[in-house]
């Protein structure tokens, strides 16, 4: 069943391209603003880069989450999905996995201009950087999908989503920035292992919480 739900998410996105297009263009606009507003040498930028990167990711994730759920609201497709006879936790899993995938796809296209425009050196441990980015995205999208589910049908949902999301996701953002900084500084895994563990804990805890609570969120 999860496969069908995931297929639906990807098919809708493939046809409309709403989520990835908005995330991509907004990400590029943010990079442009970063370049103009923080006019320092590339060496100094290198120090700020991990923080800036995750600010950008959080912004585009917020945008993507809002699009993903408001789409369901606009066409009232959500009431049809929940009328199907299956575990509603699977709806959460499909939103979480698809959201993470969309975010990763958007980042694939944004990360190169980020390094290029901000004149950053590519880290030696770039493989680990990719791993951390994917894990960080999964964490953001786990709590983000829960919060979007809560905010979706509220008035001012576009305001409510970041207001709820940002403080709740803060431990994950701290861990993402710290781990990315360590990778930028080419530190050994042992020095930033704790941050990695924190990210895994966050992702697992809220992945499970979302799976368990989505039944109550989607109730009609």
């Amino acid at each position, binding site marked *: 069943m999860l496969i069908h739900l995931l297929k639906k998410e990807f098919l809708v996105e493939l046809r409309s391209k709403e989520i990835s297009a908005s995330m991509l263009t907004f990400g590029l606009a943010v990079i442009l603003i970063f370049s103009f507003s923080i006019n320092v040498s590339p060496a100094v930028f290198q120090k700020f880069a991990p923080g800036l990167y995750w600010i950008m990711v959080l912004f585009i994730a917020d945008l993507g989450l809002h699009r993903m759920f408001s789409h369901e609201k606009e066409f009232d497709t959500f009431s049809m999905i929940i009328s199907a006879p299956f575990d509603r936790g699977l709806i959460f899993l499909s939103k979480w996995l698809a959201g993470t995938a969309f975010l990763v796809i958007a980042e694939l296209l944004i990360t190169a201009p980020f390094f290029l425009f901000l004149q950053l050196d590519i880290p030696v441990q770039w493989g680990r950087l990719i791993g951390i980015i994917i894990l960080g995205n999964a964490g953001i999208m786990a709590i983000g999908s829960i919060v979007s589910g*809560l905010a979706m049908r509220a008035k001012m949902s576009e305001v409510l989503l970041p207001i709820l999301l940002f403080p709740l996701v803060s431990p994950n953002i701290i861990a993402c920035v710290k781990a990315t900084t360590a990778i930028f500084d080419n530190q050994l895994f042992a020095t930033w292992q704790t941050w990695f563990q924190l990210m895994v804990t966050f992702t697992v805890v809220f992945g499970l919480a979302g799976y368990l*609570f989505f039944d109550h969120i989607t109730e009609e």
Partner: protein
Amino acid sequence: MLIPNKKIRVGYVIMILLMAANLFNVLLKSPMHPAQQWAQKIFYYHVPSAWVAFLSFFVVLVAGIIFLKTRNYFWDRVGLAAAEIGTLFTILVLITGPIWASAAWGKAWNWEPRLTTTLILFLIYIGYFMLREFGGAPERVARYAAILGIIAFIDVPIIFMSVRLWAPEVQSHPQVEMASQPAGIMSIFFFSLFTFTVLYSGMLWLRIRILNLKAENQ
């Protein structure tokens, strides 16, 4: 008569007496801390406020779980009352903490882990009230608020861990100092803790009562 209910009247009198005794203890009976002098006295209010705030958010968690299980709206009102009072005490923590810090550390805010966690929790609860306000149908809002209360409480230990590791140089939180205080300080501190817990119970009971009456009238 100003307060017609006898139980509430007695409660108010007990509360006023306890708070007055607490104030008397803190100002006149507690020994002066040699290094911090008067600044240390705020701790008789700061720490109990923090305790009550976190106790209150624990009540939100429990009420949320019971509401989701039973769908009894009484527990939704308990959750709302506890969230309101918890947020009120969180504000007190966020005011008294920097007052002490500016006297003791020379800086009002230096990302002390407990205070930072309290700030994040405060922001989450601002979102909680916005969700309650703009969430739509009352039945749905009750469900969503219960879930958010649970999620927020799950997040607290992760937030605290991450903030503590984030700025490891900021480790001089005063609880370590409290443990090594003389008995004179500790007994007054525990009395204050007791007073605040009684105050909290009274406030919670009153607020739930008001919310119940409101619900009956609707």
